[in-house]
């Protein structure tokens, strides 16, 4: 196997600086049936998120008398990856769905909706590195679009370590051949990062690198957060115009 150089002349393969995000595009309210929705591109990721709820719980026995149950389904279309993926959840999708749900759950004011369900479905139409972060960003916007009361915005981005260097929002090659991948998600309230809501690590880093990675991720998240806000604002303005 030939050696792949991921950092050339202090730049990344796609020309980005180490702390530079990939291009992001966010559009809220793209679906008609869902209560809230969002289309999001982040690098090569193309994802759609839909939120249904609060609605009745099926099957009934899952109901919680004191709060809404939150469900999150991360799913990849067969054509979203190089080699056709068999439809249906695999182990990876199930784990991603779990940690993503747990990232959103403490931010959703679920105690306002006892005995109901809030369902979040995210479809990856085209997959690139960081699809779980792209999906969380889209889900967060879709939740707000659905009018679900939230304690703040959830914003997600990963940091990778490649050839000993920490880089923000890794691309595919950095993810595949790098030494570590660290997806983060944060709760951002009043324009400030308040806490970590998703955190995984897959690779090998030192404690110091991890702390640096966290700082890098926070700066990246703040940029994404602005784009999420803009997307919601744009949808809101459009609706205002229609109503006039």
């Amino acid at each position, binding site marked *: 196997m030939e050696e792949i150089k991921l950092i050339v002349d202090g730049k990344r393969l796609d020309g980005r600086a180490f702390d530079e995000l990939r291009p992001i595009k966010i559009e809220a309210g793209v*679906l008609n*049936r869902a209560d809230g929705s969002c289309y999001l591109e982040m690098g090569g990721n193309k994802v759609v998120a839909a939120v249904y709820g609060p609605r009745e719980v099926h099957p009934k026995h899952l109901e919680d008398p004191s709060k809404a149950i939150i469900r999150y389904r991360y799913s990849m*279309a067969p054509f979203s*990856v190089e*080699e*056709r993926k068999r*439809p249906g959840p695999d182990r990876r999708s199930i784990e991603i769905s779990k940690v993503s749900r747990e990232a959103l759950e403490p931010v959703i004011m679920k105690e306002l909706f006892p005995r109901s369900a809030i369902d979040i479905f995210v479809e990856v139409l*085209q997959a690139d590195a960081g699809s779980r972060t792209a999906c969380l960003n889209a889900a967060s916007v879709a939740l707000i679009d659905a009018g679900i009361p939230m304690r703040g915005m959830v914003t997600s981005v990963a940091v990778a370590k490649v050839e000993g260097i920490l880089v923000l929002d890794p691309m595919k090659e950095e993810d595949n051949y790098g030494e570590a991948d660290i997806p983060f998600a944060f709760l951002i309230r009043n324009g400030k990062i308040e806490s970590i809501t998703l955190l995984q690590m897959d690779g090998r880093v030192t404690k110091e690198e991890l702390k640096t990675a966290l700082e890098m991720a926070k700066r990246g998240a703040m940029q994404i957060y602005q784009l999420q806000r803009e997307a919601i604002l744009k949808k809101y303005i459009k609706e205002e115009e229609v109503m006039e």
Partner: protein
Amino acid sequence: MSDEILMEVRRDYVLAKIREGERIDGRRFDEIRPIEIKTGLIKKAEGSAYVKLGNTQVVAGVKMQIGEPFPDTPDQGIIITNAELVPLASPTFEPGPPDENAIELARVVDRGIRHSEAVDLKKLCVEEGSKVWMIFIDIWALDDDGNLMDASALAAISALLNTTVPAERFEVGDDFPLPVRNLPIAITSLVYEDKILVDPCRDELSVGKNTITITTDQDDNIVSIQKSGPFLLREDVFDELLDVSIKKAKEVRRLLAEI
């Protein structure tokens, strides 16, 4: 409860309109909703298409790989069509393997492509008897505002038109465009008593999911019919359905030719 009442009100409104010879969105009975087609949006796929039919949205992606031919057609490629009614697209869709509706959708789309001989499968033979191209068409529903069937069929043929056979990646020669030689178009109509509502939207389907899908090829041959829904079809209505389906398909086909 209120949901049920809402549905009842909506149905009554649709019915009242139909009796007045009108449709709730002002369309003529044989008028198709606006169509938007985008192709090539999924770079990881060999071909892809997004179709918006009114508010109904679908993506179809084509992936190809090399596999063994069927024993009775050793020199022909293989088409495998799958559809997923993912829960993102409608509050009534459930997670899980394709149910009877998703299966019917995939099979009807598949028959249209197959019997119109849309793809020249003989050109997809790599090595007779052992290696042929397999075409996986995956239909992914995004938003179901009625008539996913026609949107899916249109997305499928559009994605095929957009497909490049990845021969280089599989080290069997140069890439080439998928040989598409016919354009099957599915036209679905809602049947209500003796009325035919072409391309029904979701609100219209509240009167009963009683539809007929007729797929025709570019020579106006009929290549697939599917009566879907628990209803009795009068023979005179059927005759009318044939005529309208052939006519409307021509319109859609013209649109497709432009992309």
